[in-house]
């Protein structure tokens, strides 16, 4: 992003050898950006923490103890305890698994639906395109939070259902982006050539169109995960629907919200955890966008 002293590579050298391959240039551009590198670091640490929570958490996250109620942060309890005497740090570690799992799976589903519909919409055009774009605009107009509250109260939070709900309201961004890409790629010589040689639409989509939509899709997915973490924490915070015993960042903030003046650590630390996770994915998304931008190499 801030490079004025890069040497300009002659065009004919770019193809010679792997030295200047797309991915190598991408990695260099990515890691030159300090914020992007920090984002990757945050996300990696969070994922490792989530996966190893059962081994590294100092206490059992659900073990209550009347004697240890509302202990402030200190040496025995790193981040203090809640009103049931449960260790907040251990609960945060376990909560990471819950939040990140929902966010990543919901985003995968969103991307899958969005990219497939975008490809179909852009390639076939006509009625199919009209229908898919109509659905995309409709899903955009749904007041997301009200829809999610109803959905969660219907099927419960923490179940697979939430993935589907988040994907149902989130797919239109990916679909629009992929459709726009396909519309311009469709007229390129290599796509026309593939068609002339009798390649099936599925083959063209998978081999020629999809790879060219990959970069923006990755960027959208990275920023999308950040959005999903926020959406899920908001739902847990509102506390609608079936309550789950496992720790979730959003519900910890809700539980501690009433005792802000007596035990500030109860809801401040879960909020910091959410912020850090979201920040990590946002940093990564911004960094990916800058590094994958072809104008970068001009």
């Amino acid at each position: 992003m801030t490079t004025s002293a890069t040497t300009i590579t002659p065009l004919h050298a770019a193809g010679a050898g792997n030295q200047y391959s797309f991915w190598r240039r991408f990695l260099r551009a990515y890691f030159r950006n300090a914020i992007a590198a920090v984002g990757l670091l945050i996300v990696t640490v969070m994922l490792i923490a989530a996966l190893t929570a059962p081994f590294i958490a100092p206490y059992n996250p659900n073990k209550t103890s009347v004697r240890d109620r509302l202990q402030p942060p200190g040496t025995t309890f790193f981040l203090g305890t809640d009103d049931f005497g449960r260790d907040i740090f251990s609960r945060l570690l376990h909560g990471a698994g819950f939040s990140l799992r929902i966010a990543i799976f919901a985003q995968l589903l969103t991307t899958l639906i969005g990219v497939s519909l975008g490809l179909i919409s852009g390639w076939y055009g006509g009625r199919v395109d009209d229908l898919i774009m109509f659905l995309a605009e409709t899903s955009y107009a749904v007041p997301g939070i009200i829809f999610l509250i109803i959905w969660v109260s219907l099927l419960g939070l923490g179940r697979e259902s939430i993935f589907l709900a988040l994907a149902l309201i989130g797919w239109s961004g990916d679909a629009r982006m992929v459709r726009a890409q396909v519309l311009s790629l469709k007229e390129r010589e290599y796509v026309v050539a593939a068609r002339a040689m009798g390649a099936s639409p599925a083959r063209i989509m998978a081999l020629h169109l999809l790879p060219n939509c990959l970069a923006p899709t990755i960027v959208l997915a990275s920023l999308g995960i950040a959005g999903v973490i926020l959406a899920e924490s908001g739902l847990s915070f509102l506390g609608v629907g079936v309550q789950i015993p496992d720790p979730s960042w959003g519900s910890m903030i809700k539980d501690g919200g009433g005792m802000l003046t007596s035990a500030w650590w109860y809801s401040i630390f879960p909020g910091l955890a959410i912020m850090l996770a979201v920040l990590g994915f946002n940093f990564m998304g911004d960094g990916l966008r800058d590094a994958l931008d072809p104008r970068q190499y001009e």
Partner: protein
Amino acid sequence: MTRYILRRVIQMIPRLLIIYSLIFVMTYLLPGDPVRAIYGEEVNRMSPTQIEQIKESLGVNRPFLEQYVSFIVQTLRLEFPESRVMRGQDVGDVIGYRLPRTLQLMLGGLLVALCIGIPAGIIAAIRQYTWLDHTLMLIALIGVSMPVFWQALIAQLFLTQSKYGVALFPPGGYGDGNLHYLMLPALVLGTHLAASIARITRSTMLEVKTQDFLQTARAKGLAPARILLRHHLSNALIPVITILGLQISGLLTGSVLTESVFRWPGLGQATVDAINARDVPIIMGLMVYGTIIILVINLITDVLYAIVDPRIRYS
């Protein structure tokens, strides 16, 4: 233009029908006993015939299709179904009371957001790649990464009581429309939105920056301030309007969450209450009218877009 608006309004109808049907099926499947949700423990003292009578009067015993059709007919006649829980209140009453309060909060938030976000975006773009730009954008990125309800709690911690902060604002409530009660919720919602507005303003400012007409303006010898305001900014703000329109749904979400922290009597609190009480007519009403509001706001931003940008013509 009139024809365009008319067409857009007509296009809303199938959209609403889809959302309406989806929500109807969902609320139809809502688990739990509707009679118990209304009468609570009283149910245990009722006879089975009494319970049946109540179910009959609620219409929950009728076949699925019949309930569905009667809901649609009611909506077409603009009849508001009555709440199952709050006796004597219908959807119109609930929305009539709650919507203005949510809109107050959203408008207040929007005002704060524009006042902070646009100048911040402009400064960052003018001073691109300086420490000022980096700092402003880092703050903005941290701002969009914070959960708005957590931001609200922090504001409450530091600005509403004197143990850890200063008691500048009341901790919550509506205060009978006293603006003092609106200030802190609007500030929280606004600073949250300001972060994304600043990011968008910066990027559109940078896009316009390289356009030929700016160079022409500079070559003509216009004053820098005039170039910035009349040529640069006015062109950069056009996409900001569209994106604001698309963010209405996000603003509504933020408002719902902010409401719940500050006990602001808006649509968000109404939705949570209606869900907890399984008040299906109110849930349906909130969803349908919420969707209409978003569709109308989107239409308004599209029309606004055409008014401020003469290059855009709708036919």
